[in-house]
């Protein structure tokens, strides 16, 4: 069939009343994320969705439901567990995976340590950066060619340049200076053996978008995202959770404060903030006037130097 376009049959609308309403901010972001998830499912033979039990990957699961239900997800879920995560987050992770009826793969940094793949300089060293080794080993073990993650470009400056389909070479490395140009919604998913892609459906979401979506979709989250009493060590203007995985110094004053977590990850580097926001609506309101950026306030691992995220990402961190 070879046909040329036909001229319009009916003229454009004359009255503004005929103009349909623009999609809302969240509708726009949701539709884009579903599109990206479906492209990932179509372009890769063994994708996996990284699910930690945190708020971003919980949003990702709801978007996967919207993209693929009533079918099964075209990918398993995977968590790389440092062994130093909050127990209730791990319980939440398992409960949600079971509720969804989707397969959850867990690979542990401890296993990488036991097998000599990761060597700690000292027993209490943070295991956060070590996840990279465990993740890359799991990618090889299962032959994954795409890892779908909940990272957002607004989280951190190095992530602002990340592509939606972000290429990793056979060493798992990201080369920020030689990324594939990414135009329109035309994602290039072509890979050679041993290479893989990181796929980020939430690239264009911000922290407030994520909270508004959690509110709109009534998504359950681990309770430590909401205000609760917790013993914390006060060190300058940061609060450290009291835990066997956090080494306190003699100068740290331990107090009980009302806090919540804005990001949830490895205990050794995830910091609570003081807050009385106990509901999603209160968190939305608080986030709108928040004076500290999400990772700045709460992640010890990003404070080492201005460039620390970029350095971790280059070697394969998510």
């Amino acid at each position, binding site marked *: *069939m*070879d*046909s*040329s*376009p*036909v001229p*319009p*049959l*009916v*003229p*454009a*609308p004359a009255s503004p009343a005929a103009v*349909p309403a*623009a*999609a*809302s*901010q969240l*509708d*726009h*972001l*949701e539709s884009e994320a579903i*599109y990206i998830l*479906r*492209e990932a499912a*179509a372009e890769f033979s063994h994708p996996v969705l990284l699910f930690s039990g945190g708020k971003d990957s919980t949003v990702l699961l709801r978007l996967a*439901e*919207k*993209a693929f*239900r009533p079918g099964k997800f075209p990918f398993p879920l995977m968590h790389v567990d440092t062994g130093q995560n909050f127990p209730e987050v791990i319980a939440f992770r398992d409960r949600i995976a079971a509720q969804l009826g989707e397969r959850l793969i867990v690979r542990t940094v401890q296993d990488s340590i036991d097998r000599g793949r990761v060597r700690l300089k000292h027993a209490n060293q943070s295991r956060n950066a070590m996840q990279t080794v465990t993740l890359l080993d799991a990618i090889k073990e299962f032959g994954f060619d795409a890892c779908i993650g909940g990272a957002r*470009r*607004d989280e951190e*400056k*190095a992530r*602002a*340049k990340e592509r939606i389909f972000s290429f990793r070479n056979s060493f798992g490395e990201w080369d*920020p*200076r030689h990324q*594939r*140009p*990414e*135009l*329109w*919604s*035309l994602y*290039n998913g*072509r*890979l*050679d053996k041993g290479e893989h892609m990181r796929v980020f459906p939430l*690239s*264009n979401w*911000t922290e*407030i978008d994520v909270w508004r979506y959690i509110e709109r979709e009534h998504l359950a989250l681990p309770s430590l995202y909401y205000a609760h009493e917790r013993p914390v060590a006060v060190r300058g203007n940061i609060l450290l959770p009291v835990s066997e995985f956090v080494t306190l110094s003699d100068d740290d004053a331990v107090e009980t404060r009302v806090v919540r977590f804005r990001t949830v990850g490895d205990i050794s580097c995830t910091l609570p903030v003081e807050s009385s926001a106990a509901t999603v*609506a209160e968190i939305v309101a608080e986030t709108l006037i928040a*004076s*500290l*950026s999400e990772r*700045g306030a709460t992640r010890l691992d990003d404070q080492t130097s*201005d*460039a620390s995220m*970029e350095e971790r990402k280059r070697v394969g961190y998510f």
Partner: protein
Amino acid sequence: MSEAATNAAAADIGVLRFSTAGSVDDGKSSLIGRMLYDSNSVTSDRVEALERAARRKGETEIDLSLLMDGLTIEREQGITIDVAYSYFATPQRKFIIADTPGHEQYTRNMVTGASTADAAVILVDAQRGMTTQTRRHLYLSHLLGVAHLVIAVNKMDLVAFDQKAYAAIAQSVEAFARAIGAARLYLVPISAKFGDNVVHGSPRMPWYDGKPLLALLETLPPAILTHYAPFRFPVQLVRRVPAPNGEQFRQYLGRVESGRVRPGDEVAILPAGRVTRVRAVSHFAGPLDHAVAGRSIAIEVDGDIDIGRGDVLAAPLQPPRVDKKLSATICWFADETFTPAARYLAKCGTRTVSARISDTVHRLDVATLATEPAPETLKCNDIAMVRIALAQPLAFDAYEDNRATGAFILIDADTNATVAAGMIARPEGESAARDVTGFDPGL
């Protein structure tokens, strides 16, 4: 929901994507930094980081441009080298900014940023006036179908906020815009450094009676014209759903790229060319009575028809063209020059087919609009009109009619690199631009 939240929801007109472009020292990063800072979108820890950086350099004022410049290498070189995305929102709108470098070597980044943009904010230095770079950015934004071209005449503080200096620049920009056929042009005199006409108005330029830049961006009409274009639905995936009677039925997953679809609509399945009827339109929450451009949905059709990823469901009375050859304007991205022998893949919509560049018609000098006929090769950042031969038929529109079904990328089949971006031209001989395309008053 609180009253404030309800009001905010009522005013929510969605997302505006804009690209920023400008030469290295036009102050583009400063402008974005200023917009974020003056609209209270910068958090206190980032301001503290800027203050620390200023103290290290022994400067008294913070450098707002550092809010935009991301990677370590760039911080060392002091220039932006790639497309960086940033975000801020007002109650009316969420803004997605694609910041692209103005350096001559990086035309490809500018094209990348413009490909998804509804608006382009192009900076002109009030002291230097319109430059080759300005013409290049205006032309590329227009070529990429960016609906609104916003010229921010920056550094007005350095020309004493002089109306005549501004008017001279405005005149030359308008003349060039007319020459390339760009319609929606807006000009704003600003000082990114001091904030004049960025978020707040400027008492130092009382002669300017337009909106400050942010207010302009908040009120630009949203890109909803795609609602009135003929229906296009590239199929991403096929889902087999078990039916109650034990059989299976198929759903086609994808995003409505233009127009709208309702149960009962006739649709053409292209490139095969069969026509069938839509049985159901649905999303996660259940059946829909219609879906408009931009929505990710599932469609079921009547009959047992072979439909797969890469097929396009389209309005049968206003179908896309189906052909194995096409003419297009491409922007060459690869460091390697184009060679006729190389094997390429064209990805258009959700279909990927083998492709060959059969002819190079001409190369365009974007700054002078001069053409060089039949160049033997193409190098990085070249813009050229080419003819492309495809291994299988493809359903497509002219890019100016439909951005989603008129755009493609070329992938090097050996290296997997994305080597070019293409915009499909109208068929030769058909030159008259159509106005706003078909509108169905039934909705």
